[in-house]
């Protein structure tokens, strides 16, 4: 058995970087020997359980098969029968320098998704080419995908040298051909190693006898020479919000820091709604309480001001923000069962963002093995295609260029329940907002249903019924809420005394009967508007419980969501505010039947939301309403529409 050569002296404790597992993906054309090489590496590094080799050898004798190192890896029955790897496998092993995770990515053309699944998380790659077959379609295709995924550390192992009599000439020919291909896609192999995986030549030890002309490192030497991924703490802060929890009366914002550093006291800007607040604390259960958190950590923070924040918002420092755009170009690979078709709508996910998107155009379909544009222009992308495309999202996507901050520069597209493909964002041409026009076209026939409207609007209609004393802050909250919803791309409007009393209800006064009729009409109008897909914010004192209950019933009859919001400020505060001088006049007897003074106000008993405007800032008040409202109007994306 060979001895493992390490390029580094063994010390008692490895450096921080060397303690991190380096993920290496093995790719290459089918049958060029990936599984054999991996099996051989496990054998040579003594990574297998005692008796495993003997056990598999015995099983082979039983079945009348010749033992192969690939069997050490192929555990599933089907693989042993078909002698091919059917799914990505991840296995750990280590050399004297550091631990590794080996990712075995299948080479069959139809198994692209498994290769992507395996390769997308890799830090480095070993690409195999069989010397007797030379560079094949998959050799090039996999190289292209590695480059697209941003994997820069690549070693090419030229396998099966024993089948070409260890010919240096054959090796050099393969090297020349593949090196030329790699240079076209901007990838440079660290080195080419001639090997025979089944014999272990140049895998862990040198094959001085068989290939004396090769003076370079073995495959394992090369693995040890790969660099560990560098921490991204020096990059700009990107903190995509994963969730907002309410625990122990605190509002906790959870997520993983994708890049940069986050400190207590930092002022964070949340994109795309451009709100800012300051980090009040970093919450760590059972951990050391700290003032700072770094890239890679899953953290929970609290803010000094409780602004509206939700999953998908991306926090950054104010001075170094990500890009926001709703029309952009991307490089995309597609593995979906159905074609990706221009004009159709899909779900796009980038970190924790989830947006409806539409394929605007297919700009170029590329043959990944020849690097040439494929055929005539077309408006779809088929399974296994790689293409340059233009996408449009309903609301702004928060992103970075992939070469700057990789995790914010890549997205996936979901078709139905299935991940269909992935895309890479790169700089330049994707912020031309003047071209943005709605291109949402529906071909459905027949009655326009609530779900059709929701699919187009991206949300359902609903009624937000604000109730509270005069001066409690209903109008202020209504206007701010309308602006907030509008900025999120939602369709919304306000019903209040200003636009209802003078027109629709101009024949009504303030007697108890007229008040009842006033609210009834508002309830009916709100229902019609909500049915047409709007989020209607009604801002009326609506002092009587029975009237509000009636408005709720009207809404529910129409199938509209109804959110009763108690805008709760004490009478003294309202009277002190008295923005329209009404309390003073009521006290002076100039206004009869004034709610709170000479007419009753019945506080809601079961309002969905209570907003104590005398205790919360306006931003905080909005946050409280938004948190309750958004889950109720969320449109579940349904591809059948």
């Amino acid at each position, binding site marked *: 058995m060979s001895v493992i050569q390490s390029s580094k002296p063994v010390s008692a404790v490895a450096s921080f970087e060397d303690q*991190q597992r380096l993920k290496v993906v093995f790719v290459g054309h089918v049958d060029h020997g990936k599984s054999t090489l991996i099996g051989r590496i496990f054998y040579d590094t003594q990574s297998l359980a005692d008796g495993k080799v003997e056990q598999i050898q015995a099983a082979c004798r039983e079945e009348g098969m010749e033992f192969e190192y690939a069997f050490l890896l192929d*555990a599933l029955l089907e693989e042993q029968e078909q002698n091919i790897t059917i799914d990505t496998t991840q296995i750990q092993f280590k050399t004297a320098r550091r631990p590794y995770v080996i990712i075995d990515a299948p080479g069959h053309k139809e198994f692209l998704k498994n290769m992507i699944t395996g390769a997308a998380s890799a830090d480095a790659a070993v690409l195999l080419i069989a010397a007797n077959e030379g560079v094949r379609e998959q050799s090039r295709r996999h190289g292209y995908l590695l480059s697209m995924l941003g994997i820069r550390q690549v070693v090419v192992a030229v396998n099966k040298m024993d089948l070409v009599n260890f010919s240096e000439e054959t090796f050099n020919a393969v090297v020349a051909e593949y090196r030329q291909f790699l240079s076209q896609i901007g990838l440079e192999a660290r080195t080419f190693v001639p090997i025979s995986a089944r014999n272990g030549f140049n895998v862990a030890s040198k094959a001085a006898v068989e290939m004396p002309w090769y003076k370079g490192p073995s495959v394992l030497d090369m693995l040890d020479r790969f660099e560990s991924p560098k921490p991204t703490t020096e990059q700009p802060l990107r903190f995509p919000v994963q969730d907002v929890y309410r625990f122990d009366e605190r509002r906790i914002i959870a997520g993983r820091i994708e890049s940069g550093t986050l400190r207590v006291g930092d002022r964070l800007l949340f994109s795309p709604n451009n709100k800012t607040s300051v980090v009040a604390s970093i919450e760590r259960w059972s951990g050391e309480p700290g003032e700072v958190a770094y890239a890679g950590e899953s953290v929970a923070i609290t803010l000094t001001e409780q602004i509206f924040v939700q999953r998908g918002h991306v926090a950054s420092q104010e001075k170094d923000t990500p890009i926001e755009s709703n029309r952009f170009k991307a490089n995309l690979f597609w593995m979906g069962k159905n074609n990706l078709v221009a004009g159709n709508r899909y779900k796009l996910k980038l970190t924790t963002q989830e947006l409806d998107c539409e394929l605007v155009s297919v700009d170029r379909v590329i043959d990944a093995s020849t690097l040439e544009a494929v055929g005539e222009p077309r408006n779809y992308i088929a399974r296994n295609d790689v293409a340059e495309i233009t996408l449009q999202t309903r609301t702004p996507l928060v992103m970075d260029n992939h070469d700057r901050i990789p995790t914010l520069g890549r997205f996936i597209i979901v078709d139905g329940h299935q991940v269909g493909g992935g895309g890479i964002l790169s700089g330049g041409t994707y912020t031309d907002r003047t071209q943005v026009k709605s291109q949402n076209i529906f071909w459905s026939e027949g009655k326009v249903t609530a779900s059709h409207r929701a699919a187009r609007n991206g949300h359902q209609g609903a009624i937000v019924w604000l109730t509270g004393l005069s001066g409690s802050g209903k109008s202020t909250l209504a206007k701010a809420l309308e602006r907030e919803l509008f900025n999120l791309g939602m369709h919304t409007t306000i019903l209040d005394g200003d636009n209802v009393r003078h027109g629709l209800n101009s024949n009504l006064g303030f007697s108890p009967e007229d008040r009842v009729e006033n609210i009834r009409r508002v309830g009916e109008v709100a229902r019609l508007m909500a049915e047409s897909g709007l989020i209607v914010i009604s801002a009326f004192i609506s002092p009587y419980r029975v009237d509000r209950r009636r408005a709720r019933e009207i809404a529910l009859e129409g199938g509209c969501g109804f959110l009763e919001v108690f805008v709760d400020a004490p009478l003294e505060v309202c009277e002190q505010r008295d923005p329209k001088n009404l309390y003073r006049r009521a006290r002076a007897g100039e206004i009869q039947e004034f709610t709170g003074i000479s007419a009753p106000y019945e506080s809601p008993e079961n309002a969905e939301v209570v907003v104590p405007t005398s205790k919360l800032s306006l931003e905080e008040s909005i946050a409280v309403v938004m948190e309750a409202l958004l889950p109720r109007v969320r449109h579940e994306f349904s591809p059948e529409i």
Partner: protein
Amino acid sequence: MSQPTIPMKMSEHPAYAGRYPAPPEDGKAAFFPEKISREDCAHLDALEAQSIFLIREAYHYFKNVCMPWSMGKDSNVLIWLSKKAFCGHIPYPLLHIDTTYEFPEMIEYRNWAVEHHGLNLIVKINEDARAGRGAYAERGPIGYDTTDPVTVTHELKTEALKQVMAEHRWDALITGIRRDEDPTRAKERYFSPRTADFDWDYKDQPPEFWNQFTSSCGAGEHVRVQALLDWSERDIWLYIQREGIPIPKMYFARTGADGKRYRFRSLGCWPISGPVESEADTIDKIIDELAVTKTSERAGRAQDHHERNAMQKLRAKGFM
């Protein structure tokens, strides 16, 4: 052979008739490790961050989540990570599939841990199978004295899980399986969809990359969220030590009747779980032992070895 009922003295329980003796009656239900952070565990931070991320994703996408809890070391790490993810809370129930073949001290540990962590625990036993009634009337009682271990595992664990899932309609299970445990688990996804019949279509798994997961499933189907997939057995121990996570005492060496020392590496039903010879009575010693061992973690589990590919067959039918 029916399950003896408490209050039999633990030392008289048949579970301790083998090499591993009953625990001393010292009133301690759990082992509390001394918190030590070794120099060679810098990689634990990345593992922890990814697991917390996965757990939070599961909670976000699936509101009807459950966390199976075997009481073993891995599932105790899951409890710990859940508390880290949710600032000391666990916002979903835990599930113990009780085969009725648990070691008595594990039941003691279970009761203690429920109190200690404030768990919302659901205990499920496939009563019909054990009693041989209902759907099992013709076959008779399922147990290790009457049935082969693969069938017992399937009926008392997988079928029990199906029954309790039908009752509670969970759409996601957060599990603690690891890639290094078994070759079939090495091929798992973080979010792995299962059909209504619990089938795992390992020939056509969905793509999974860039931390985007299968985040929805059809009616009756569920998703297994495998939050510890990247961890190794040794990582689990390094983390238990670093964090001081309380665990069952059976992982530590006791002196058997033959004078040799034994401990459990993996805990399962007592009739089919064998201890390994080991001097390790501290976590440090366990970690050092794992650095040189060449036997597999589940070597002591009889159901894995009953026939060739037994584990693959069990897992394709819905076993964890």
